[in-house]
């Protein structure tokens, strides 16, 4: 009985296997194409809907899968951005320095008699109460007290203290500073003094001098503290009163003192000290 049942099962199996083989052969000879087409038409919408839903789920899953990778990539990119920012700043600084040095070189070529030493501004009065700055050159580099400091735009000040590797420069805008000056057009002379309110004031100009706004003011060289013909600035306003002995003028400095980064020390100039000359035999 069991053998008959097993035989029946094997026959059952063989029937279905044969059916499968027959379907396979029919399919290979394209005789089942209409049936396949029909089945495809029925199942395609369902498959499409499921595939679409799966895509959305897969996208959602991929979002989380890639989240960590994105985070790591973001960190790497942020690091790269930081490096590029630093490099960009460095290049921009180099470009600015290059422009400044070119201007200095141009100034030096225009004044071949000057021996100039480039210096970087490394410090300035933080309170803005006193007009001085610190440069990175000192006696070791040939800087001495009294030497004029300038840029290609004009006079900056003079060295008042000189250390081995740094020096203190008193700006011409400081109220304690005074520079003998000359008005280019009228040839009138006066003294440029620092002013807290106006930047620079030219005082002691003879009443007879015909001066006007726009005139250029240069160093006169009188007194021997500064060489001649260095640009100081431009007259912006003239104050002339009949009751005064002298007339005054506000002068706009040619140098932008707020943005000073590089200056030049005129090392070939030796200021003349009258006391020393008088004591000399």
């Amino acid at each position, binding site marked *: 009985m069991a053998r008959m049942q097993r035989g029946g099962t094997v026959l059952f199996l063989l029937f279905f296997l044969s059916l499968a*083989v027959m379907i*396979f052969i029919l399919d290979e000879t394209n005789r089942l194409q209409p049936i396949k087409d029909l089945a495809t038409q029925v199942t395609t919408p369902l498959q499409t809907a499921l595939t679409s839903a*799966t895509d959305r789920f897969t996208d959602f899953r991929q979002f989380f899968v890639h989240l960590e990778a994105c985070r790591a990539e973001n960190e790497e990119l942020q690091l790269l951005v930081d490096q590029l920012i630093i490099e960009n700043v460095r290049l921009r600084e180099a470009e600015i320095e290059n422009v400044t040095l070119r201007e200095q070189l141009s100034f030096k070529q225009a004044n071949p008699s000057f021996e100039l030493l480039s210096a970087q501004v490394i410090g300035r009065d933080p309170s803005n109460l006193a007009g001085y700055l610190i440069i990175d050159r000192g006696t070791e580099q040939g800087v001495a007290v009294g030497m004029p400091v300038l840029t290609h735009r004009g006079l900056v000040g003079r060295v008042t203290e000189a250390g081995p590797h740094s020096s203190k420069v008193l700006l011409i805008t400081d109220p304690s500073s005074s520079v003998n000056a000359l008005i280019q057009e009228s040839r009138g002379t006066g003294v440029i003094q620092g002013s807290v309110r106006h930047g620079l004031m030219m005082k002691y100009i003879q009443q007879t001098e015909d001066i006007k706004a726009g005139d250029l003011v240069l160093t006169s060289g009188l007194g021997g503290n500064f060489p001649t013909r260095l640009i100081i600035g431009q007259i912006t306003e003239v104050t002339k009163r009949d009751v005064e002995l002298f007339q005054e003028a506000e002068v706009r400095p040619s140098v932008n003192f707020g943005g000073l980064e590089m200056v030049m020390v005129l090392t070939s100039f030796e200021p003349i000290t009258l006391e020393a000359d008088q004591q000399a035999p």
Partner: protein
Amino acid sequence: MPIKTYAVVPLLLSIAVVQSSVLFRFSFGGARLHLMLLTVVSWSLLRGTREGIVWGFLGGLMLDVLSGLPLGTCAFTLTFTAYLASLGQLTIYRTNPLFVPVLAVAISIFHDCILMTILSLTGYALAWADLLLRIAVPTAILGALLMPLVYRGLSLLHYRTLPEDMGL
């Protein structure tokens, strides 16, 4: 209430659609869940050879239609696999909790071997070693892990649809 063959069609069709549209997209180290195979093997273990063969044939045929393989390929493979799995119904080891997962591994690899043999015979160029190591074995392991779930789920259906003369 015994389960009729025509009532099986929607269930198998649903599994075939899910298998061909959804499950093939999820790969776990090369392994893909072959839900139809696990279903047919489970049903063969639960209901014996004849019903297993019918489920294998119908399920395989539906997969053939939906997957683009030559018609009859999966039908042949799953029918034969169902027959082999049904033999496990008669062993004394069936009560062992490891029996179902171990059988799933063996049957899964055997199923893939038959399928690859058929495909090779019909002109498909297959890298046997790679396919076995990278797909068949991981798929078998994944199947073994999930087989108890499928088996338990179908057990519920099995007990609710037992023929009256087999009712407990």
